[in-house]
């Protein structure tokens, strides 16, 4: 057990810090939610060219074969320098699409895509959720039909983050509606420039449009872009999802720094907030959670460094994030009292944005309820829900709205 750097790690950290300081750039005002992805591509390219991109990947794909710990140190330093957000915002490309290709893709697919991702040339999005199916992902309808060496795809995806910027997508389709739902899925890599792909941004509850609707009309995909066997897309999709959940918990902040400053700045009727007993008690609990989340994320990441794929355990991190972050932010606004209703009340509106954005934390990458099912069934080994549709051919399953 050692939460500190070894001398070699400390030396690595120094080098990373110096390099980041020498290469970071000012992107504020430029990287506005739903408006511009250029800074993300740019940072990825700078990292790659400087020998700091995709650190733990094999060299042949543009990585550095660094250890997962070194990768972790670099991310910590990026965060410290205030530029981490640009890597974090690229996590669908790096953490999900690339991870899936690396794990399940053919050699040709790895050669075709990984290095371009490493260079920041290509951004990816995730075409999984549909209007009819999110939690019940295996219930998607988008059809893929074989046509010679190609597939023709028709359907609609929704909530697709960054589809408006993406060059490529990972896509789950239904290739056979006549078999039970988990058995008729096929997974593809889709060029977003293909004819028939139409992206329409959706205005989010937090304002801005990070996610989109994506319509697929007679979109042609070469069979060479299929990942895994026909009808075995579910297993590939699970690989993507495991990586997603491992990523999300460490992406979003606990906002402890915000509440710490806030309690020192805000006055209550009986004096500074930091001296109020109830506030102190809340603050202590917030800190315990904050530090626990920190250490938990380090533990999960170091488990990865032992070469393991993220397992169902990683869902615990994401489950512990959303609801609690939301509740604590509610406490923070309670302290700001009447004035807190104004967007500019604190930190240029960043805290209010967090209050709105956190809504998504309990939904994206698996809702809290689904994560509890996963932990209950796949980690604790509790019996599954009775599934009325499991053995039924997909096209005979009852549907609602």
């Amino acid at each position, binding site marked *: 057990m050692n939460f*500190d750097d070894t001398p070699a790690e400390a030396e690595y950290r120094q080098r990373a810090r110096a390099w980041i300081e020498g290469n970071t750039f000012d992107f504020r005002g430029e990287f506005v939610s739903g408006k511009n992805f250029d800074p993300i591509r740019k940072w990825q390219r700078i990292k790659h060219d400087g020998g700091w991109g995709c650190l733990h990947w094999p060299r042949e794909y543009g990585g550095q074969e660094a250890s997962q*710990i070194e990768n972790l140190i670099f991310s910590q330093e990026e965060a410290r320098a205030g530029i981490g957000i640009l890597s974090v915002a690229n996590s669908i490309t790096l953490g999900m699409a690339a991870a899936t290709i690396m794990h399940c893709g053919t050699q040709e697919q790895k050669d075709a895509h990984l290095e371009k991702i490493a260079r920041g040339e290509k951004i990816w999005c995730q075409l999984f959720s549909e209007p009819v199916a999110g939690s019940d992902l295996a219930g998607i309808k988008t059809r893929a039909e074989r046509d010679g060496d190609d597939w023709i795809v028709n359907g609609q995806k929704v909530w697709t983050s960054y589809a408006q910027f993406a060059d490529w997508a990972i896509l789950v389709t239904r290739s056979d509606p006549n078999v039970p739902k988990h058995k008729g899925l096929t997974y593809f890599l889709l060029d977003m420039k293909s004819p028939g792909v139409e992206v329409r941004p959706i205005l989010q509850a937090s304002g801005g449009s990070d996610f989109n609707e994506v319509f697929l009309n007679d979109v042609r995909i070469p069979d060479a872009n299929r990942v895994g066997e026909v009808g075995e897309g579910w297993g590939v999709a699970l690989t993507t999802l495991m990586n997603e959940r491992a990523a999300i918990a460490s992406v979003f902040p606990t906002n402890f720094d915000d509440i710490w400053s806030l309690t020192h700045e805000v006055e209550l009727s009986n004096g500074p907030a930091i001296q109020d007993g109830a506030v102190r008690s809340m603050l*202590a609990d917030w800190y315990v959670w904050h530090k626990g989340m920190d250490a938990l994320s380090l533990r999960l990441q170091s488990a990865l460094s032992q070469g393991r794929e993220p397992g169902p355990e990683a869902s615990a991190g994401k489950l512990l994030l959303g609801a609690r972050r939301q509740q604590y932010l509610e406490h923070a606004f309670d302290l700001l009292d009447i004035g807190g209703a104004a967007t500019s009340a604190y930190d240029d509106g960043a805290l209010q944005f967090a209050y709105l954005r956190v809504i998504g934390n309990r939904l994206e990458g698996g809702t809290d309820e689904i994560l509890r099912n996963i932990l209950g069934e796949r980690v604790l080994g*509790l019996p599954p829900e009775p599934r009325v549709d499991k053995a039924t051919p997909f096209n005979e399953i009852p549907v609602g709205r």
Partner: protein
Amino acid sequence: MQFNFSEDQEAMREEVRKLLAKESTSRRVRDVLESDRTLDKDLWQLLADQGWQGIAIDEVHGGAGAGYLELCVLAEELGRTLAPLPFSSSVFVAAEALKLAQETPVVSSWLPKVASGEAIGCFAIAEGVGGAHWGALKCVAEGSGGAFAVSGTKSVVIDGMSADFAIVAAQTNGTPGLFLVDLMDGGVRREHIDGIDESRPLACLAFDNAAADQLGGVGPAEIDQLLDRAATLMAFEQLGGASAALEMGVAYAKERYAFGRQIGSFQSIKHKLADLYAEVELTRSNCFMAAWALSSGDASLAEAAASARLSASKLYFNCAKENIQVHGGMGFTWELDGHLHYRRARLLSAALGGSTYWRERLLTALSRRNSSDTRAA
């Protein structure tokens, strides 16, 4: 960086778990709980044969000279089995108090006895209910040159019935200090007090000019440090108990049927257990952080220890009560082990001070560092 116990430490855990599963059974917990016995002497001796009481005591003082991390592993495993032993009082508190003190004859004579299990120590700090703690001690120690006499009443003293000596917090010339009192000496009256968990019997200790040795160099700062160390180690004991209680609940949820289904297939049961699992992992993370700070002497120990304690106290209560809930009416029976965890959880949350007290300690420690430090931490 390494965010886990080493392979050797995990191998040790396996051994400990195997032995305790065989020897530290719930039957033995109940034998103490349901009788006038103050501890399971045979089990205590078995631990002593393994050298466990002295695992983190240096060789000069008769210990094994291993580190705190090994002791954390042991604490977690003892917690799992609810061992009816004064281990935390004697090893996490009394031994650590002696380790913190200047090397004097009192240390060199008592520490080896704690290490070998020959002597059992307890921690006499509380003076009635409420969380004022050692800030306003009524117990006084008078004397000089290390030889003192203590007067006053300490209640309650956890494991005070099985102990041979007590580490007593008392005022001397207006400052708090720690004093070792041999409970077999004159001037000590010991009375059993009924408690929440009779597998760890409580005592009231009344001192009337009882002979006491001062622990040299131990003032308020060292008492704080002692509490941080003990809180870290005890957090592992709580974590172990909580995990065991959760496992009990999970096992029953798979066995028990209602409405033609295993109850674990109902989401209100499954999700409750899943939340507790996530909570266990969060607490484990807090505990690891504290264990590292303790073993490496890092300056963050105060925050890390308080975090681990707050997290673990809440966790054990939650796991213990929800395990009972999952068991239905069976959960409210004496026969089921559920209440053993419920009782132990309450006892351990009380020992070393409640959560209100520890939240305040945490904030004091955080304020001591300025906010920019907190950011970096």
